[in-house]
């Protein structure tokens, strides 16, 4: 257990208790943890995005390591640009091309997303901010096409196929197995639930009664997923507390205990002092 692990444990305990202190009231410890979290996570995802997407998938495809000599004027100038970038940023563009499993000849189609990306960066200046519209338009077009197919296929057709239940040759009532009663519940529930989303007619009169049955089914399914979630969330909390207990052990010089005591003292001082001068 070297030094950086122990120091790390103290930092982790401080930040964990800082977030938990939010349950008591908004206080300086929560503000510290929140702002550190926002700052660190912004940088973290930027590094992850660059080193797992931009460098391997974009540059890796535009300038893969060529097998053997580069021939032809076009390729020579293409890799000339690469060497120029390599000169500026040797860590991002190691000489000899990037070998991330994208074959050996450049995918020139990927100049398009590269251009969209550059335009997105240029849109930071208010004069050129319209450049971002092209990137947005591409994203929305792609999203519309892919999601439209996926949702119509799996949500609509898939669910209808699933609801084609049968009422023939099965016991009338049995709680656990397949039965006419259960299938009837599923069919009626699906249809009335679907009609609840009917917009062209006010939900009154007979039609209102049908949609009311629909809401009952929706409410039962909301209650069920709520009850189901409670179990999962509690085990998360158990995980956090066991973690705090291990960091309270001798190998970490009783980090949790010390930090907890100091925090409680400071919080008490801060709350009483707070009555006189409202702290930030």
């Amino acid at each position: 257990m070297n030094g950086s692990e122990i120091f790390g444990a103290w930092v982790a305990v401080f930040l964990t208790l800082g977030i938990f202190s939010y349950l008591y009231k908004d206080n300086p410890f929560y503000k510290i943890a929140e702002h550190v979290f926002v700052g660190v996570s912004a940088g973290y995802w930027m590094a992850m995005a660059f080193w797992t997407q931009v460098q391997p998938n974009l540059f890796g495809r535009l300038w893969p390591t060529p097998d053997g000599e580069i021939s032809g004027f076009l390729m020579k100038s293409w890799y000339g640009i690469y060497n120029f970038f390599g000169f500026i940023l040797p860590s991002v563009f190691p000489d000899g091309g990037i070998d991330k499993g994208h074959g050996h000849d450049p995918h020139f189609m990927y100049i398009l997303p590269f251009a969209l990306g550059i335009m997105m960066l240029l849109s930071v200046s208010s004069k050129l901010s319209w450049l971002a519209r092209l990137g947005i338009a591409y994203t929305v077009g792609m999203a519309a096409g892919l999601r439209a197919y996926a949702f119509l296929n799996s949500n609509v057709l898939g669910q209808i196929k699933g609801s084609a239940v049968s009422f023939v040759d099965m016991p009338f009532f049995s709680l656990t197995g397949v039965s006419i009663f259960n299938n009837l519940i599923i069919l009626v529930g699906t249809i009335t639930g679907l009609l609840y989303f009917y917009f062209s007619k006010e939900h009154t009169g007979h039609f209102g009664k049908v949609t009311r049955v629909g809401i009952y089914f929706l409410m039962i399914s909301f209650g069920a997923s709520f009850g189901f979630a409670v179990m999962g969330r509690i085990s998360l909390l158990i995980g956090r507390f066991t973690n705090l207990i291990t960091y309270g052990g001798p190998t970490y010089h009783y980090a949790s205990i010390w930090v907890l005591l100091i925090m409680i003292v400071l919080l008490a001082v801060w709350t009483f002092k707070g009555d006189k001068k409202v702290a930030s």
Partner: protein
Amino acid sequence: MKDKQFWSVAGIIFVLFMIYWFAGHPFFVSERGVMFWSILVVGGVLIYSTRMAKRGEKITLRSIPGLKAVEEAVGRSTEMGKPVLYVPGIMDMDQVETVAGVVVLGHVAKMTARYETSLNVPVSRAIVMKAARESCRESYLLEGRPDLFHDDMVHYLTDDQFAYAAGVNGIMIREEPAACLYMGKFYAESLLLAETGNSIGAIQIAGTASPSQIPFFVTACDYTLIGEEFFAASAYLSQDPELIGGVKGQDYLKILFTSVLLLSVLLFSMNIFEQQRSDEWKDLKQKTNLSAEKSIADFWNNADPISRYRAVNRSVSEPSAEHILNKYKNIAYSDLSKRQKNNIAFTTGTPFWIQLPVDNRMEIVNQTFTDNNQSGYDTDAEFRQLEIVKEGKNKWNQMGEDEREEYQVKFPEMNREDLYAEIGKETIEWEDHEVAWAINQRSIPVIKNILMVQ
């Protein structure tokens, strides 16, 4: 596009497509035929109802309480001089819900411009930041108040789900907005936001299509737009005839889907009726029930009263009352009821025919049908050729580049169809196709094969 122009263009496209279709539709992925025609039908209904609305036909839609409350909420925060907080979800513009969230933001921005309320839009993705800014700037321009708009109304926090939730919680507790609107795609952090919003006493209106988060919004917010209601929000708020027509189209489709659902239930049941009359079904049923009866009888005759009790009631507990134990000791196998025998069949793992799931039963029957008509199956050349080509095509789609070249070299200058046949001939295993042949012989093909969707 005026009407006449629209129909002529649509007609030309249709004719061209028919020519392509009857020219053997090369390059067409025929497995996805069902999806192709459903996209055309669904898209057609939507476009038709949008055009009807554009031509000025009056359409009334039912009221959605959540959407009426949006205007009230903005009004309330103006009175209290507090900002409106708008959260467009945590996902990027590659989710349709986020795009819908930005569109609804445009309408809300019109309201905040009109009421001169301050608007605060923390976002979790940079592209959403740019889109939200464009949308808000346009709304403030349309309301004639460009002076009120400043870029930092829409500001980026972080890409991380929980850091974003922590940051938005911080904004809520410190700026105490009077109205919190959550419109977009959410995951586990939805309850973090909604509970904090509730603790500062703000009006909360949520709209999302993430099925797992709707229950949390329903319990923690004042109003929730559930799934489809959220997508209808932009039509309601803008009252633009084209959008309202679209919503009307969605209603027509609901009726269509309900009728398809009922039709498939009918077809499925009729198919089972039809199979019930086949003699394979009858003697399989008899054979299964006989073996079930025998194994239950064996179990019953040498089981002690407690395990008898447990088997009959499918229970795990031990009956404490003496009189029950005696009762179960004396009951003979013959006077057990049908329900009791079913329960024993479950625990002994030898189900009656009626207890097998329907799909299993139909598959066994079809398999037995092929075994009984083996000669018919072996000589059905037309079916076999069709299956070989289908098999070859499947294998071709799964193949990598190098494998495909191999086959192209082995069978030079061969059109696609024959190439599939060659591949199919090599790789086909006929046992997997026997059930398909039996289904083929039945008069009404199972609806599930019709809806065979990739």
